[in-house]
């Protein structure tokens, strides 16, 4: 790989910026700013740096509407907002999806708008850690903050997760490498275990790699639980792992002082889904009879946890909240975006700071191709290719301030570093405007109906 000299040509440094990429929410970044643009980022990983130093070629700068030929056409803000408000006001079963890459302040207006029109509000948890949240509802959740784990943990387990690819600074900032109060030698005081069918980049640097079979997670955790409870395992291999290794691992896990388990989408995306996590949590319950163990889901986006916490606080349910009856409802398999789309129930889809075009399975995107889609985002992406109204937002944590929640539930204020492009608007402003405009349409309809 080519050598890149350090960036020295900049006007000012904005210190203590927060990274708006993954659930680590690293809040120690320095942005190097020149002429109102971030030209360099210090301390961020490859992912964080590439997001902050975005590709301006594909930045959404102007509001757009599809014309009758199916081509996007630039329009002014009023026209675009009116068009979107009209679609939302006349919808029977709208879904407002996304929210994980915007601020809590924006979600506040989103809830108001959702309640007004009886929409379903859902976020990326529905395609990533939804099963984890269900498991938490099933069997509980022994949590700890990342700081506590950094100071205390002497065994770190990553299961179904590859932080070296998806949360690159997680090991160096929070879990494995840093020195902690009780772990003065950092990495040397900790054992790193990776459980993953793949010999992933994280597995390559671990002390122990357990490569169980594909879809073997459920059996494997059950075997560990059996071993922890002193039961004899009667098969020689469970999920492709020899019995002796399982006994040895169970013994090692029992004898640490403080263990932390991080789990990722490897568990939630395979066949047993939330039952995998039920089992992982119950395994921890068993371990807690001997010593202290905690667990944290590896949340993907910087504010995906924020939506769940905010929704649970405001409405009682973490995601997939349906307002169509006038009060919040939540029913797995019924009020979730993917199910609503594959059943072809939804008639207007608004996506805020997310990319269903890239990340939904084809079966769900096919329905999006049949209904109007409103997009609020900062970049031109696969979703723009299927969007009918495009509203350019602003970049939280760089161009506009906001609150987000880290993967362990710690709220973090993300400050503003540079000004947004002139023609863009803040997400918060866009959703508030939509709310006001829809309110006006509804009031007019009510006035006509009462005559």
């Amino acid at each position, binding site marked *: 790989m080519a050598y890149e000299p350090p960036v020295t040509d900049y006007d000012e440094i904005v210190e203590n910026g927060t990274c708006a990429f993954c659930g680590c929410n690293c809040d120690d970044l320095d942005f190097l700013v020149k002429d109102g643009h971030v030209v360099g980022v210090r301390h961020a990983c490859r992912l964080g*740096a590439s997001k902050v130093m975005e590709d301006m070629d*594909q930045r959404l700068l102007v509001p757009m509407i*599809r014309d009758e*030929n199916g081509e996007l056409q630039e329009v002014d803000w009023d026209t675009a907002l009116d068009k979107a408000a009209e679609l939302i006001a006349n919808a029977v079963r709208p879904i407002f999806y996304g929210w994980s890459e915007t601020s809590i302040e924006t979600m506040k207006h989103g809830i108001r708008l959702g309640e007004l029109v009886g929409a379903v509000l859902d976020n990326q948890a529905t395609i990533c850690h*939804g099963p984890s949240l269900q498991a938490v509802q099933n069997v509980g959740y022994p949590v700890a903050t990342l700081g506590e784990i950094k100071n205390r943990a002497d065994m770190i387990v990553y299961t179904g997760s590859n932080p070296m690819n998806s949360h690159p600074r997680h090991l160096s900032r929070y879990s494995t490498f840093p020195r902690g109060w009780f772990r003065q030698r950092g990495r040397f005081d900790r054992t790193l275990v990776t459980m993953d069918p793949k*010999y992933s980049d994280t597995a390559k640097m671990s002390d122990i790699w357990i490569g169980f079979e594909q879809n073997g997670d459920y059996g494997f955790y059950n075997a560990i639980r059996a071993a922890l409870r002193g039961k004899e395992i009667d098969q020689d291999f469970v999920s492709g792992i020899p019995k002796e290794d399982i006994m040895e691992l169970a013994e090692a896990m029992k004898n640490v002082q403080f263990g932390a388990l991080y789990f990722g989408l490897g568990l939630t995306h395979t066949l047993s889904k939330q039952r995998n996590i039920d089992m992982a949590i119950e395994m921890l319950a068993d371990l807690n009879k001997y010593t202290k163990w905690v667990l944290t889901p590896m949340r993907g986006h910087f504010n995906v946890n924020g939506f769940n916490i905010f929704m649970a606080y405001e409405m009682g349910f973490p995601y997939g909240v349906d307002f169509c009856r006038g009060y919040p409802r939540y029913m797995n398999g019924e009020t979730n975006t993917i199910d609503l789309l594959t059943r072809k129930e939804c008639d207007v889809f608004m996506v805020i700071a997310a990319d269903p075009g890239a*990340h939904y399975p084809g079966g769900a995107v096919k329905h999006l191709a049949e209904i109007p889609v409103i997009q609020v985002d900062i970049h031109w992406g696969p979703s723009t290719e299927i969007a009918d109204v495009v509203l350019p937002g602003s970049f939280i944590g760089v161009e506009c301030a906001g609150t987000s929640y880290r993967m362990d539930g710690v709220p973090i204020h993300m400050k503003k570093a540079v000004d947004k492009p002139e023609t863009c608007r803040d997400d918060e402003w866009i959703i508030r405007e939509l709310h006001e405009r829809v309110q006006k349409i509804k009031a007019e309809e009510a006035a006509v109906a009462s005559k």
Partner: protein
Amino acid sequence: MTYIEKPVVPKVVKLEEPTATEREVLNMMLNTGSDIYQGACKKRGSTCKDEYRKVCGVAYMDPKDMARLGVSNWDTVKVTTDWGEVIVSAVHSRDAPHEGTIFIPKGPWANVITSHETYCCCDPTYKGIYCTVETSDEEVLLMADLMRAVYKKYVVDEETIPELESLGEMPVYKKK
């Protein structure tokens, strides 16, 4: 370095494998998920570019499987599941060995063939899907072309899709 042309992949050494009898079609297990190249390219916003096609429109394969199929790095293959088929480039996986499984980073290409089945758990099945892999001489489509060819939202005549001009690597819209 945040900009890349394509992921760095090991070179395929064609092994003299007595077991590696050549096959026309491989029955494999498909996994999808995030990958650092995919994450960096996607969140920077470069989804229309050739780079996105090179980081997402690829199937990371075990070199032995590649030898069986007779493909080398960046040759195109067709991956088929119960939910669809897609053309991607085959590349040597840096996590090999994992014979019998392929990995396609999450993105529009992978999602043409993932399962939307949630089994009432809200989450689609993105991992552990049975698939077949065979060689192909078609080209891997750019993101915009792929979205048009697969979902056909604004296509008037579906028959004409193969002849339509590519939408290219830059956003296409009418300015005021």
